[in-house]
């Protein structure tokens, strides 16, 4: 693993920003199994900034796929497991605006649905301490320039749940703009949904594909080498169409961009 030494680059020292902070990484279930690069990059990035990163093994999922399909009762034990797993940590950080949004927006409702006041209290605490990686970097560590180097042309898709549920705002873009060597191209109709929508893509496959095709067309129009986003399942959806079209544009999680350094590249 490469730990960039910011001082050698004559840039403001970001390295100490995380000193003394222990972060509990919530990898998210999809990243754990399908996209380990994103939580790996998150770990490396946070360690580079001085944090201690622990991975509580009891973690599973935020429950979003079930609750968004309408299965409340089934999701309650998942919420309970999440709350118990992360209750003791000051900072819970995930490389996913969507999963963080689900924790923030749905876990309290589900604790109430279960009529479990004790669970609700634990959930209240955990929810307040759960961050998307972009929020943790900017709001808690106070860094925009994380010392990353990524000499490529990229375009950024702000995923719907990162924008409208987690409310990460312009944080990801600010982080990207501080990356050395990067060229960021505007994505036309960036705020339009890519058509993934979890089980929507299975229940309404035709509409989902039609929406993904629009997004893929807009991405291709930018001439970028990489499509950056903060949610891997949206990337999977868009890049699935891009791949089928042999466009050559690669999907990449924002944490991987931010973890890249000159030494590593």
């Amino acid at each position, binding site marked *: 693993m490469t730990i960039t030494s910011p001082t050698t680059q004559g840039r403001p020292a970001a390295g100490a920003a995380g000193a003394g902070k222990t972060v509990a990484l919530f990898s998210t279930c999809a990243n754990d199994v399908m996209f380990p690069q994103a939580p790996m990059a998150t770990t490396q990035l946070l360690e580079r900034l001085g944090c201690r990163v622990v991975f509580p093994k009891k973690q599973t999922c935020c429950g979003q796929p079930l609750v968004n399909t309408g299965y409340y009762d089934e999701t309650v034990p998942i919420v309970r497991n999440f709350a118990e797993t992360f209750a003791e940590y000051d900072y819970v950080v995930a490389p996913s605006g969507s999963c963080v949004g689900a924790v923030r927006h749905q876990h309290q409702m589900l604790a109430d649905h279960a009529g479990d006041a004790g669970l609700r209290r634990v959930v209240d605490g955990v929810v307040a301490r759960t961050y998307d990686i972009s929020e943790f970097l900017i709001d808690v560590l106070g860094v925009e320039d994380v010392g990353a180097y990524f000499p490529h042309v990229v375009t950024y898709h702000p995923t719907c749940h990162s924008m409208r549920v987690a409310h990460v705002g312009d944080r990801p873009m600010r982080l990207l703009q501080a990356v050395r060597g990067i060229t960021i191209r505007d994505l036309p109709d960036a705020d339009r949904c890519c058509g993934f929508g979890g089980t929507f893509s299975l229940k309404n496959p035709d509409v989902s594909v039609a*929406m993904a095709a629009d997004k893929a067309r807009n991405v291709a129009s930018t001439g970028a080498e990489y499509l950056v986003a903060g949610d891997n399942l949206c990337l999977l959806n868009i890049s699935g169409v891009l791949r089928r079209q042999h466009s050559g544009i690669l999907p990449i999680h924002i944490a991987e961009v931010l973890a890249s350094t000159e030494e590593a590249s």
Partner: protein
Amino acid sequence: MSKATQVPVRRAGHTDLESTRRTPAPPAGDLIDSPRFPVQAKVELGNPVQRKNLHHAMTTIRAKRTKVAAELDNWEDLRLAGEAIKNRTLRHLDQYLVQLEESLTAAGTTVHWARDAQEANAIIVGLVNEALGDAEGDAREVVKVKSMATQEIDMNEALEEAGIAAWETDLAELIVQLGHDRPSHILVPAIHRNRSEVREIFLEEMGRYGRPAPEGLDTEPANLAGAARLHLREKFLRAKVAISGANFAVAETGTLVVVESEGNGRMCLTLAETLISVVGIEKVLPTVEDLEVFLQLLPRSSTGERMNPYTSLWTGPTAGDGPQTMHVVLIDNGRTKVLSDPKGREALRCIRCSACINVCPVYEKVGGHAYGSVYPGPIGSVLTPQLRGVTSPVDASLPYASTLCGACFDVCPVRIPLPDLLVHMRHKVVEGKKAKAEADGLKGLLHPHAEPAIMKATAQVLSSPKLWAAATAAGSLGGKALKGRVAKFGPLPWPLSKWTNARDVPIPPTESFRAWYARTHHEDGSLK
């Protein structure tokens, strides 16, 4: 546009009745019997002209709304005020409705109450018959102001059955009616049609139901509007009875408000002798002052205009001016049921501006006909299954007709949390499915009740750290087995084929994240 790509004008189903009908027959069947959303959505997706029309229209209207909403530095305050006023009104709806009845009556308007569509239609037919007296033939007709409530109760067909012709006078509603069609949008009902289709409909149909379209009519919007003006004027000047809805009904004064763009509504509201207004009970506002908020929110949200062109307010009949007989039919039609659900009732704040529809990426792809509902888009997907229940196949599918992208909430002028309500309604659908699966016993384990069983099994794995850890190990075993053989998955078997028919999926990694972490880190986070 080539002839081949034109959408055929939808044809009537009641051909055998056609000869005795007064008005163009709409497509056969009831909306509630429509196919499930994904099925009809696929059909609509296959219509390239409609997709192009919708994309163009929605993009334009969205941009207009964004611009005018951004002009006001108190836009968010207005939204909060709109939400608060509606919430307060709904909380005390019983009192405000009684007050409204008293004020309307005092202003000389007769108030009628209807529990459902059937009752409402019976009242309306009775009132029209009374107003028309022994009029015969062409004179047995009414002119209509665009109204969602009358569509909800399918009033035109109830009048038709009673031998009364109901003429739509809103330009787009006229296009829909003459086209034997159904509206596909609550604000711009003929949004799925383009100019050449409109021309075709006018040329073919106007003559059968009144003044024909001028010969040689072209596709210039001004000329198309001119043809509609001449066709409608005949009806405006002749009709004795007009039927309207209302955007707002003010409890304090008994004032009704109609917000429209063309002035055709005002022709109906002022020229007829009898005016019947069909109003959903959630339309009540406490005071005239409250209009200050809504008359700013509504035009900016719906048409993207700063001010609405024709806003008509009236408080009972005025001697010697306008309709001398006025009736209001207050309809419940499922609204009290919606009100009884503390979460679901948020949908009753809706002022039918259509901003959520215009911003919905799913609607833009498929259009309104896919929803099998008078109300399409996000609001339709949460309101219709509440009004009608979630038992019909289409109603059970509507809450899933969204990616939950949340764009709708951001634009809703009364801050209805549409994504939350969609999830809430999904929960209701699931509860229904579970109850059915239980009632069906073992049979319920098979399709179409497979989903609850799959979800239960998934939840068991996801709530058990042990089972989940095992699953992640199995996942990377799959990745290892495939390593080096393929770079991506092409087509996969059902149900994953729904994904891979149009998308490629990369092969799973050979090592899960947790395996990597355990290999490189101690449990306390220190590096190995």
